[in-house]
């Protein structure tokens, strides 16, 4: 069974008196364990697509099925529960909570995921991303690469079915960017979690197994890459 399936998904945004068509009937199937990147120029619909598959936003038309559950028509609260249970996010700007330590940031994801606080599990998640000696540092005491590793640990600690990484290397130098991508690829191989990236970065494209190219709200290419 596919982890994600999109059928003729349309997204319209009101803009003044008119509407902007951000996605024009996108259909796509993603199998469990895929490492997939959405690529395309700005305005192509990558972010809109990630928002919809990540349950941050709803499609205007079409059907989205995540891990066997129909997403279309769910309330904001139900979407929130679905995100907490099945989706992990890694953001371009890390979006860590600055008043919490690395460990507390990771623990927070467990709590919000409706799981009991589990310090050992949160610690292990940070050990897995190579931050065993940075557990109690706050985000402002960590480098950009380390912050993104915390964000990855935070996304993965609750063992989500789907990890969405929105331009995860955009704020990192090439060395840190490559290290973060290698880490995500390793976790993808070890844990079988499905990773969806949105990117312009060739570094990302060179490490994924599938590249879906978008232009003006439509899929123009779907390339599988064997590595």
């Amino acid at each position, binding site marked *: 069974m596919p982890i994600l399936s999109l059928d003729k998904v349309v997204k319209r945004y009101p803009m003044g008196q008119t509407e902007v068509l951000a996605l024009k009937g996108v259909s796509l199937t993603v199998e469990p364990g895929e490492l997939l990147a959405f690529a395309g120029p700005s305005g192509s619909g990558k*972010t809109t697509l990630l*928002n919809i598959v*990540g349950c*941050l*936003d709803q499609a205007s038309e079409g059907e989205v099925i995540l891990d066997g559950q129909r997403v279309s028509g769910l309330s*904001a*609260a139900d979407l*929130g*529960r679905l*995100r*907490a*249970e099945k*989706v992990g*996010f890694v*953001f*371009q*700007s890390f*979006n*860590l*909570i*600055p*008043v*919490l330590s690395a460990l507390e940031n990771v623990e*927070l*994801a467990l*709590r*919000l*995921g*409706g799981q009991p*606080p589990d310090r050992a599990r949160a610690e292990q998640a940070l050990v897995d991303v190579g931050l065993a000696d940075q557990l109690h540092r706050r985000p402002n005491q960590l480098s950009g690469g380390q912050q993104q590793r915390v964000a990855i640990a*935070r996304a993965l600690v609750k063992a989500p079915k789907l990890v969405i990484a*929105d331009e995860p290397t955009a704020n990192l130098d090439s060395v840190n960017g490559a290290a973060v991508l290698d880490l995500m690829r390793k976790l993808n191989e070890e844990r079988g979690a499905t990773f969806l990236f949105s990117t312009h970065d060739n570094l990302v494209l060179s490490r994924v197994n599938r590249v879906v190219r978008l232009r003006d709200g439509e899929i123009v290419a779907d390339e599988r890459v064997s590595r």
Partner: protein
Amino acid sequence: MSFLFSLALRNLTRNVKRSLLTSVAAIAGVALMVLGFGMVDGLDENVIRTGIDTQSGHVLLRPGGFDMEAINNPIDGLEPVPAELLAQLSAGEGDYTERLLFDVKLIRGPDGLRATGLAVDPERDAKVFPRDKWTIDGALPEGRQVLIGSRLGRILGVAVGDEVILQARTSKGAQNALSVTVSGLVTTRSPAIDNNTVLMTLVLAEELVRAPGPSQIALRLNHRDDAFTVAPSLNGLGGWRASTWRDESADILALNDIRRKAIQLMVFMLMAIAATGIANTLIMAAYERVREVGALMAMGMSPRQVQAMFVLEGAALGFVASLLGVLLGGAVNYYYATVGIDFSKAANVEASGFAFDTMFYTNFTLGPLVGGLLFGSVVAILASFIPASTASKLNPADAVRAD
């Protein structure tokens, strides 16, 4: 909920200076509330106790036909105390004392001052009106002696052992004068006595004004609240009217109520400013943390939890500010409740009509402290709802990528 509360507390430490500045109005409002109410309640208690201890006792009886409004301390038409009233007083709870008040002129050489003559049985009177706050330079009066309020004596330049003349109108309207010796000068901390009273025995007053009976009977009970049952039982007996200590202090207590309302108004205004500050700070925090809120929502935090996080942040800010206000107002209040404020220098002849202890103590009780803490916290919680609601309505898709 506990992790939301913990997160809210951490968020308060992001910008400590801003949190402190926001708290200033709330601290001031709660401190004013605690101290202001402590002062007014202390003033109430001062007036009540001083009135009871120097003027009214717990129950004050006056002859029914005695017209208090006619002139000061009228003595016309006084009669001996009816036997049935005396019998009831003797059989009832507590101690009583008969007092005769009249206008008198105190003359020393070429100088003279108008004063209030107070005639009592010194031994019996002490059981109703305690003298533990009295300081007597000299002795209590006997025979043809008078005890003069210390400030009155100072103004007239009288010393212990001096001869003075008492001039007064008798109950029949004739003028009378007696030469008496000053047995002592008394400081009671009550301006009404210290500034204006000449104390003497009933026997001497009888010789001076020839009144056939007292103008008042004051009664001291085991507890002051007993007055509310005893006074009605005595009222009308032998044609005498009975009033409680509360009736006697009613005018000044009503003035205190006005003071209390003025303080309430000031507290309300300060807390309105505090509420505006808290709401403003939280709105700023909500806009500064859009991306964080977006990330929390992306991780599954519900709009209700976002709202709770901001309300808890406001509540924590309000609680901490209220606690500081309670500590500040409480500490100042406790100091003045313990050490007191000496108003003796400020108490002048004009204030002589009021029963007021010049050593003023504020009232320190737990009620205003708890009330201040609750009030400040509730105001902060109410002020937090609008910013909390603003934050909870953020669209997570936009919020996670906000600039």
